[in-house]
């Protein structure tokens, strides 16, 4: 018996398992009110999945609106497509545009790390394709539990293997990211995947169905039973009595199918054969049809029988909710349909025409000749529930903030400072990540100008001019826990700085906001503070948020993760030939410290590693100083004044110096006296403090005068703190004069040890 619209109208009393599908009583009542009858099973499936937190942003919407409100004209200058589409688009000039977005795939990656992470990459790449862009790079921001926990040895190699497998097979260079360990992520790792795409202005496409009579076409992989219950929880046995099957909740990725889909889509775009396009991700066909129709202000009629199935036993509800990967939906003019089908045939991409765009404002879906969905698409896709969830400042925060790391003992003797430096550099969060990044292809496409371990990844966009973009992602959950407003701004500042040190100028932001349960008022407060901090920060820096993603319910039992707003900043550079790496390549350069150092050890890596301490207030945020620093770095890079530039963040000055040395195996001699005197700090503070708006630059001697003049002119505090050299080969060392020396061989051994343990089993 098909639960058609007519059947629903005549059986109002029939009980529906809406609660099992995640809908609240009032939400179900609202659906009944909207339809003027009970929903059919298919309609219930659509509403439940589209009104889930994941798809509707019902808890976050009221706060996210700040990103649209806190924008000035200067931030709109480059913004071609803002939030709300699959990904934001920024103008690069010369007819070029760039699109980028970061998105979470946290929960699937805990259940099934390999496929969870792989399909996370696949999903974000399809967002990029659906803007009309060629994907050109990926990055990943990862958070795991304790580095030595047995389950981390399951999750990490699986996640890294999944990212490696999918992105390498897609032919996308992985140009950077972060890996961070903390027990708060033990049962809830964070896998945030970012993709970058480039396009010519005329290739821009939107997810919008307009033009009555235009065909609705589904192409790519066949629809199967995977991923049902990914976006909301569907227990199929309780949904339909006859269906006792269990479906896998994590999708399975096929990067080969997606690679072919990319090339096929780009050929379709360039031939002008697509009026509107939407990728199929969470909520599958439910989402694609309702969003296309809602965005276009049109209607749509779809015959669900036309969907090509991998499993013919799927019910219509399951077809609507399936999250099978590597599928796209296009709106195609009838006179272009044959040409469209010729292109998909050339790429051997299976294609079916599901229906057409109508002008009546209704989304009508039929199955076996009966109408099973008849809804206003905007009620599904746009006008979902909006919650003003209660929030309040956690009572425990005052005590936490009062517990400053400033009270912890700080060593003065060289031997102790040396031991603590090595402990920091050998800690999991500061360790060499090449055990992970060497599993990623960084060369494919031939445009990678910078990649991990440099501070930002950089990609050439235009081979003739050298025009390029740089991207960095950052977040520090420890700062977020101490002060979510400041924590979000510090993540923004660090990503901004990481882009600036490469010589690029930041122009846009994407964010992936990872938090605990929104039903917990303390978590909701953290979220509200972080969003406000990020929106205020972007306004001050003059760079817009172009899109992103919210991930709630990241917690183990009742314990939420630290607030982890991962911020991705994208910058542009006129010519990637002027890029600046994060380490020195030559002996004899002068090393300068830009910015000032304060006693700011609260939430620092030093406090965590040396004292197992988390308390106090995170470093002060000074976005004006970040901006001054960023502009100076861009100007200096443009004039070729830097052989290297490296931002100071986790682990402070000692981490920056060590990484600067290890990048190319060139040592350094450093003195701290001038810093101690000018800033009134002790040696431990100078080495380990995480004050913001700082960077180390390596300046060739012949550029010294020009450089110091540049700093004076721009009022950026600067001190010469050393020179690069430290001997050759096994003699090379990082020497902090009067305190200690670290031979680079010893440093490298310590630095690579923490992640060397992870080995991905070939069998998967």
């Amino acid at each position, binding site marked *: 018996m098909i639960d058609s619209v007519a059947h629903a109208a005549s059986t109002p009393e029939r009980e529906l398992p809406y609660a099992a599908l995640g809908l609240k009583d009032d939400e179900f009542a609202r659906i009944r009110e909207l339809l003027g009858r009970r929903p059919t099973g298919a309609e219930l499936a659509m509403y439940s999945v589209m009104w889930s937190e994941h798809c509707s942003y019902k808890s976050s919407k009221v706060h996210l609106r700040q990103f649209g409100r806190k924008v000035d004209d200067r931030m709109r200058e480059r913004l071609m497509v803002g939030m709300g589409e699959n990904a934001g688009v920024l103008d690069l000039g010369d007819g070029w545009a760039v699109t980028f977005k970061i998105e979470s795939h946290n929960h699937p990656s805990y259940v099934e790390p390999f496929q969870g992470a792989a399909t996370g990459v696949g999903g974000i790449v399809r967002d990029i394709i659906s803007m009309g862009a060629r994907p050109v790079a990926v990055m990943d921001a990862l958070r795991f539990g304790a580095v030595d926990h047995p389950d981390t040895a399951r999750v990490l190699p699986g996640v890294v*293997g999944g990212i*490696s*497998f999918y992105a*390498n*097979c*897609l*032919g996308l260079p992985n140009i950077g990211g972060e890996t961070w360990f903390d027990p708060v992520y033990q049962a809830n790792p964070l896998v945030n995947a970012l993709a970058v795409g480039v396009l010519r202005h005329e290739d821009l496409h939107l997810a919008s169905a307009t033009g009555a009579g235009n065909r609705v076409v589904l192409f790519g992989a066949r629809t199967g039973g995977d991923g049902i219950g990914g976006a909301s929880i569907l227990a199929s046995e309780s949904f339909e009595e006859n269906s006792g099957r269990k479906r896998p909740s994590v999708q399975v990725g*096929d*990067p*080969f*199918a997606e*690679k*072919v889909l990319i090339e096929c889509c780009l050929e379709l775009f360039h031939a002008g054969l697509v009026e509107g396009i939407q990728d199929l991700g969470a909520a599958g066909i439910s989402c694609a049809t309702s969003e296309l129709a809602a965005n276009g202000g049109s209607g749509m009629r779809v015959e669900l029988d036309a969907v090509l199935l991998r499993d013919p036993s799927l019910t219509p509800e399951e077809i609507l909710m399936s999250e099978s990967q590597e599928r796209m939906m296009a709106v195609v003019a009838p006179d272009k349909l044959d040409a469209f089908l010729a292109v998909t045939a050339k*790429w*051997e991409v299976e294609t079916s025409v599901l229906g057409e765009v109508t002008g009546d404002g209704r989304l009508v879906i039929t199955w076996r000749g009966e109408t099973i969905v008849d809804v206003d698409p905007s009620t599904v896709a746009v006008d979902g529930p909006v919650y003003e969830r209660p929030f309040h400042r956690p009572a425990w925060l005052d005590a936490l903030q009062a517990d400053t790391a400033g009270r912890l003992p700080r060593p003065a003797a060289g031997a102790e400072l040396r031991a603590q430096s090595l402990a920091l550099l050998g800690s999991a969060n500061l360790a060499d990540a090449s055990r992970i990044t*060497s*599993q*990623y*292809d*960084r*060369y*494919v*496409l*031939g*445009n*990678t*100008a910078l990649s991990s371990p440099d501070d930002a990844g950089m990609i*050439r966009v235009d*081979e003739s001019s050298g025009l390029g973009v740089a991207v960095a992602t950052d977040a520090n959950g420890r700062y977020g826990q101490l002060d979510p407003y400041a924590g979000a701004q510090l993540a923004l500042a660090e990503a901004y700085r990481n882009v600036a040190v490469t010589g690029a100028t930041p122009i846009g932001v994407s964010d992936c906001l990872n938090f605990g349960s929104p039903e917990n008022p303390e978590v909701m407060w953290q979220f509200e503070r972080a969003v406000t901090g990020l929106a205020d920060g972007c306004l001050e820096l003059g760079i817009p948020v172009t899109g992103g993603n919210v991930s709630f319910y990241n917690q183990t039992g009742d314990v939420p993760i630290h607030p982890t707003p991962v911020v991705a900043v994208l910058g542009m550079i006129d010519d*990637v*030939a002027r890029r600046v*790496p994060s380490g020195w*390549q030559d002996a004899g350069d002068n090393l300068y410290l830009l910015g000032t150092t304060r006693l700011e050890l609260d939430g620092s890596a030093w406090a965590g590693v040396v004292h197992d301490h988390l308390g106090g207030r995170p470093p002060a945020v000074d976005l004006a100083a970040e901006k001054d620093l960023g502009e100076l770095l861009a100007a200096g890079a443009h004039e070729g004044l830097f052989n290297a530039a490296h931002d100071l963040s986790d682990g402070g000055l000692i981490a920056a110096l060590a990484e600067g040395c290890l990048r*190319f195996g060139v040592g350094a001699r450093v003195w701290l006296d001038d810093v101690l005197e000018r800033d009134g700090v002790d040696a431990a503070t100078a080495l380990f403090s995480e004050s913001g708006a700082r960077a180390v630059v390596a300046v060739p001697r012949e550029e010294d005068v020009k450089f110091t003049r540049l700093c004076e002119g721009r009022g950026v505090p600067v001190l010469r703190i050393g020179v690069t050299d430290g001997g050759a080969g096994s003699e090379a060392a990082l020497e902090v004069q009067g305190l200690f020396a670290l031979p680079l061989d010893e440093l490298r051994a310590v630095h690579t040890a923490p992640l060397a343990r992870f*080995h*991905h*089993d*070939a*069998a998967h």
Partner: protein
Amino acid sequence: MTRVGVVTFPGSLDDRDAQRAVRIAGGEPVALWHGEHDLHGVDAIVLPGGFSYGDYLRCGAIAARSPIMAEIIDAAHAGMPVLGICNGFQVLVEAHLLPGGLIRNDHGDFVCRDQRLRVENAGTAWTSRFEPGQEITIPLKNGEGGYIATDDELDRLEGEGLVAFRYLDVNPNGSLRDIAGLTNARGNVVGLMPHPEHAVEPGFGPDTPAAMSSGVDGLEFFRSALESVLARA
């Protein structure tokens, strides 16, 4: 201008990079499509890296049986220079233009690194501009690059000088006898796991002692082929 065909299979990834390398070396790249039987009058051919047909059966196995490969096998037997890079090397092996097999890296992981190699045979169409024994650095990136063959076959390959490249410093994938690449006896068909097309342009190649990303050792592969085509003409 010498025309060098670069084949695109479904799942080819480094095809546009190979085209760029041909262009930088001074040749004219010509895109060839896996489903056609037409070589478009090219003078040499590159089978690029990637995961042709998803590498779902054995790496390169399906591509080796594609329509275009029938033509390429004939052309190779007639002496046309053919270079197989990474997945292209796997295709050449699956097409029996080169002997042996390539299996999953011994450590199980995909690996991407700047790889030092020794040019063992500088007499092929793709290596003539190198000195015998010259040490070069080009990027390597593969998951299934472990070269295998029987002991007898390995002895024969070494005895006949058919080992074109050997890994130096690190054997990145467990290849027997550190074999990174092979040539056929005639010297026109060469296959290797590392990627010369990613070491052709300053700023985008491997690091060298002189400067980051400045390695262009791969350019000589393509220049060698262009010279060899001219010499044949």
